[in-house]
């Protein structure tokens, strides 16, 4: 559970805004809060220089951002997905905004009761609620001291775990060596935009042979202030090291910025293993499909060395639009890539998500387990690519893509792509589509379980293979999240 991007005062305002918008014609689809310290709207060289200067970045960073901006100017927004949404008014957006602290609620009494009810349902510990709700009290100080303790322990092992803005200052060599090596600034429209304007994010470096003794979570990141809409994360696992990183939060996360374009880069050197788990629960918009976060994320891991391994686990329940394909480039011999995903859409949510497994090294192996769950009027697409290049002798892939439908107004789509250039490859693909049946719900009803809980249980059962990949605590929360996210999906 991490605490950032929360500001309930603004949240209620946002809700009011949403209500206002609901009452009139929905013009731009974008809500911008005005209680912010902002740079001027739009995007140009000056804005980039201002962002870079504000962060006191070295010149190489400023140059990199500018190169990205110039490249982005030449790009077109990709429209090849199954997603339908109005044009994003990029020139009207604010690309740097620091939230004002003065309006933070002083206690939970000032927090939106609906948000508190959700915390209750999710079983968020009391001491974390204030933090999540953005209450400006001791809880925050406590968390900083907890974080400091962890940080001391980590630095004893030589592990670097800090905001990426700090790493740019303190470890410029590592940044120069690795930033943009997995997701270059030219990669795609959103990644390019992110490279130009990224606000903050996490940086992790695990030295050779070190096994990180705890799950790293952005929750414990010092100065975990709002990283905003353009988050950038870079994780490097040096030879023979291991790290497990948790991103996100099961509590509903609201943000005044509607467009999110994050980039995550992972680098696993020889014999290293990175496990990256995400629970994404951004605001999904109203039941009528108004508002909600547009989440365009580029996540990619490079298994650079022999015997390296990268494993992505994601539970996606939030956002109005999810566009996300955590991928692995399996360059090292015997390297392993894994992708476990649960993507749940309800109401008018749309998700186009999946993975790419690029086999370059000999004997590289990949596993894809994707579980899509669609309810309401939502649309859920799995899009995956398995590519085996000429030199990837004896590569293996197994893909399992399942879709579960709740009700009869939602859609599930599967787009598996395969490009196999080596005849020794072993590729298997299995796909199923099933429905939550009335018989199953009745069976559970007849044992005293309410329909809502029944659907939650059925869905959790269906997604179990993926939940098992999550760290224990996270898995329990993620299951509760399923039920909460499906509220109202059965009559």
């Amino acid at each position: 559970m991490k605490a950032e991007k929360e500001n309930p005062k603004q949240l209620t305002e946002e809700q009011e805004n949403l209500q206002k918008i609901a009452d009139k014609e929905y013009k731009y689809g974008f809500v911008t809060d005005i209680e912010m310290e902002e740079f001027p709207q739009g995007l140009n060289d000056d804005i980039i220089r201002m962002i870079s200067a504000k962060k006191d970045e070295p010149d190489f960073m400023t140059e990199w951002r500018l190169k990205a901006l110039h490249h982005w100017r030449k790009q077109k927004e990709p429209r090849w997905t199954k997603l339908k949404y109005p044009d994003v008014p990029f020139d009207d957006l604010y690309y740097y905004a620091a939230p004002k602290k003065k309006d933070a609620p002083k206690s939970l009494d000032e927090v939106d009761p609906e948000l508190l009810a959700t915390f209750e349902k999710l079983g968020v510990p009391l001491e974390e609620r204030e933090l999540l709700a953005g209450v400006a009290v001791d809880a925050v100080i406590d968390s900083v001291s907890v974080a400091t303790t962890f940080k001391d322990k980590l630095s004893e092992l030589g592990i670097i775990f800090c905001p990426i803005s700090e790493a740019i200052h303190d470890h410029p060599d590592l940044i120069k060596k690795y930033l943009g090596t997995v997701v270059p600034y030219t990669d795609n429209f959103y990644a390019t935009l992110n490279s130009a304007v990224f606000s903050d994010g996490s940086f992790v470096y695990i030295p050779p042979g070190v096994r990180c003794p705890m799950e790293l979570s952005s929750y414990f990141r010092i100065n975990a202030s709002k990283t905003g809409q353009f988050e950038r994360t870079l994780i490097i696992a040096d030879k023979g090291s291991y790290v497990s990183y948790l991103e996100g939060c099961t509590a509903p996360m609201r943000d005044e910025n509607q467009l999110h374009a994050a980039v995550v880069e992972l680098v696993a050197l020889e014999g290293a293993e990175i496990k990256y788990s995400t629970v994404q629960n951004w605001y999904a918009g109203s039941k009528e499909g108004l508002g909600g976060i547009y989440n365009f994320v580029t996540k990619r891991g490079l298994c650079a060395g022999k015997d390296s391994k990268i494993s992505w686990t994601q539970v996606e329940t939030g956002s109005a639009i999810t566009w996300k394909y955590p991928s692995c480039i399996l360059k090292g011999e015997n390297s392993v890539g894994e992708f476990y995903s649960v993507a749940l859409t309800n109401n008018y949510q749309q998700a186009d998500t999946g993975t790419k497994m690029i086999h370059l090294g000999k004997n590289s192996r990949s596993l894809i387990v994707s579980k899509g769950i669609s309810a309401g009027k939502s649309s859920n697409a799995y899009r995956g690519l398995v590519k085996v290049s000429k030199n990837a002798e004896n590569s293996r892939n197994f893909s399992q893509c399942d879709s579960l439908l709740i009700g009869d107004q939602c859609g599930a789509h599967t787009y598996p792509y395969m490009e196999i250039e080596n005849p020794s490859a072993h590729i298997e693909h299995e796909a199923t589509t099933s429905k939550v049946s009335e018989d199953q719900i009745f069976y559970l009803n007849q044992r005293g379980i309410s329909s809502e809980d029944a659907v939650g249980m059925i869905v959790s059962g269906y997604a179990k293979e993926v939940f098992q990949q999550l760290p224990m605590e996270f898995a329990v929360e993620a299951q509760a999240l399923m039920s909460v996210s499906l509220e109202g999906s059965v009559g």
Partner: protein
Amino acid sequence: MLSIKDLQVSVEGKTILNGLNLEVKAGEIHAIMGPNGSGKSTLAHVLSGKDGYDVDGGSATYKGMDLLDLAPEVRAREGMFLAFQYPIEIPGVNNTSFLKKALNEIRKHRGEDELDAIDFLALIKKQMELVEMKEDLLKRPVNQGFSGGEKKRNEILQMAVLNPELAILDETDSGLDIDALRIVAGGVNKLRSKDNAFVVITHYQRLLDYIIPDHVHVLSEGKIIKSGGKELAFELEERGYDWLLEHA
């Protein structure tokens, strides 16, 4: 405990139950027999609250409540249990945690404390002996990959754990070999008490060799055409249903 008066039920305009009357008191076992299509399973479904049935007339009172007005989960929490003719598979949902959730919903409804994992395991282990079930079935997903007999035993195990006041067994004997039948019936016999009641729906008399009913009713075309003691079952076994139907 259960009082059904002149119950009329239809499915998509077709009448299935046509003026059914039944009185069940605590401590009793009632057997409902009848040929295929006589409305036996409909009766079980309507009593337990399954969707898709229209009640056109009559009433059903359970422990003084208007049964037909209660949501299915509330009926269950009030102590009504249906052993399914075709138990449903729920992939990925662990059999033990499912049953724990069910029991705790019922306990919560009664205002009792929820059982924790340790107490629950102790209870379930004890009750498993009743149905001679293998322990690994507890670790598997609900009914998934169970044989026909294992599914039926799992129903009886659930009944033993949930300890209902009124249990309806819908053709629990169908598809069971003689050993499984004996175990299932043994479970029922050990659970019966002066405080609970059973309605045993069956096509064959065979189950009644093991579960001795106090009352036997013959259902035909949606109503009970004959009631009697256990000897009625033997008579049916010998003479079939036809002699009754002719006189009906």
